[in-house]
């Protein structure tokens, strides 16, 4: 996996013939697997471009105090982008725009986060050509006293046929917290498949009962379920998994 470092809001250039870095733009010209670490970033503005017929797996991670970010993903014809992203910021205010520009562009966006204080996410997913697919999976663990807000908007205009839209957001609360999910699908075309689900709630009692009936105490059971939800969504490599587990243990 190739590593891209973004330090203090700037992309650190490095030699890789499969990508082009130009100021805050990263263009993927060939298939690849990339890991991006956002280090000491507080005001981030990044544009990703996936060229036609290119498949990219992108892992993004941020573990910082406060992050304001504006991230745009632009996908070309028959391109495929799988984003796996983990955030553990004290505060986050992020705007994500996904542009499915050409036919058969496909994005799978898996986002897991710990909400520590105040997090706001705005997603705009634009299906701009026929037979484009979007799968958005957000999983958040809201700590006591935190607030999380997800506004998720998908757009399909009349005449853009055969698109597939999927939004699934789940927030597990650990104690009192203020959480809101606003899923919107603005669909002007009949030939569209759309699915969404939004869940805010505490850890499932039946799952807890099952684990505890095998001798696992309450706190360990909650920990197992939370870890499971966070990690299964993003499926990180072993090294990243250890890093995330260390964060979750805290």
């Amino acid at each position, binding site marked *: 996996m190739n590593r891209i470092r973004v330090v203090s809001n700037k992309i650190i250039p490095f030699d890789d013939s499969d990508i082009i870095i130009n100021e805050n733009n990263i263009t993927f010209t060939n298939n690849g697997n990339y890991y991006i670490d956002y280090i000491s970033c507080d005001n981030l503005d990044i544009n990703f471009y996936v060229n036609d017929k290119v498949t990219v797996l992108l892992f993004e991670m941020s573990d910082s105090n406060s992050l304001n970010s504006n991230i745009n993903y632009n996908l070309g014809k028959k391109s495929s982008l799988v984003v796996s992203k983990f955030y553990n910021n004290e505060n986050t205010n992020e705007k994500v725009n996904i542009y499915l520009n050409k036919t058969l562009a496909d994005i799978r966006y898996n986002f897991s986060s710990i909400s520590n204080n105040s997090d706001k996410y705005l997603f705009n997913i634009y299906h701009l050509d026929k037979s484009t697919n979007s799968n958005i999976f957000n999983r958040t663990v809201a700590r006591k006293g935190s607030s999380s807000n997800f506004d998720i908007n998908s757009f399909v205009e009349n005449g853009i046929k055969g698109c597939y839209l999927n939004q699934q957001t789940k927030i597990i609360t650990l104690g009192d917290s203020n959480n809101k999910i606003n899923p919107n699908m603005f669909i002007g075309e009949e030939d569209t498949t759309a699915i969404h689900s939004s869940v805010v709630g505490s850890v499932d009692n039946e*799952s807890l009962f099952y684990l505890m*009936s*095998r*001798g*696992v105490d309450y706190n360990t059971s909650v920990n197992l379920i939370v*870890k*499971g939800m966070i990690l299964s969504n993003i499926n990180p490599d072993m090294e990243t998994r250890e890093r995330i587990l260390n964060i979750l243990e805290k």
Partner: protein
Amino acid sequence: MLKINNLSVNVDNKKILDNFNLSIEDGEIHAIMGPNGVGKSTLSRVIMGDSNYMVEAGDIIFNGDNLLPLSTDERAKRGIFLAMQYPMEIDGVSNQDFLRTAISAINDKKIGLYDFILKCEKGTEELSMNKELIHRSLNVGFSGGEKKKNEVLQIKLLRPKFIILDELDSGLDVDSLRITSENIKQYKEDNPDTSILIITHHPKILEYLKPNFVHIIDNGKIIKTGDYKLSSEIEKYGYNYFKDKKNNMTKEEEHE
């Protein structure tokens, strides 16, 4: 081993168990049979400490201690195991992590990886289980038979003293029922003091596990107790026969 005295349990203001009594000695196998909705699964959940069930009266004594004040995990640590009718699917929690955590919790010490792998390999082989299931998320995508085998694998690894089998036979094909039952039978032979409570509506599983006592439950109460032969009578006459017989006897007693 287990003594249930005058237990009454309500769910949503409806009485599910009514002044229920049952006594199970060390090493005994009991079967509770009855149609749907008479309180069989409620009994198993209450013994295990499911907080959704409100105990109105009575007590449950396990090896001299009252279980009711204990949490579910504390009951499991005392040696009680409930093999569930519908084992939970928990995405992201690997079967392996869960089993290691549970074994460590039950024994109050961490199990070494090598020891754990050996035990899992032996258990899965004896149960004719796909070894890959150990690495998958807990019960996620398992077939009905695989879920039940995973429950029995947990019995083999956690080594309980008192096992409740809540409709282990539901959703099992003939071969899987034979394999899971034979594994439980073997466990019982290896651990003769272990007691088992089988909850079922079908007599087939009892052919393998041969209970010492069979109880028929209706409206939250045991209406008849007999030996293994009672299960054959149930198959022959149906539950209503015993229910009507009990009702007639009660009427006669009231008349006298």
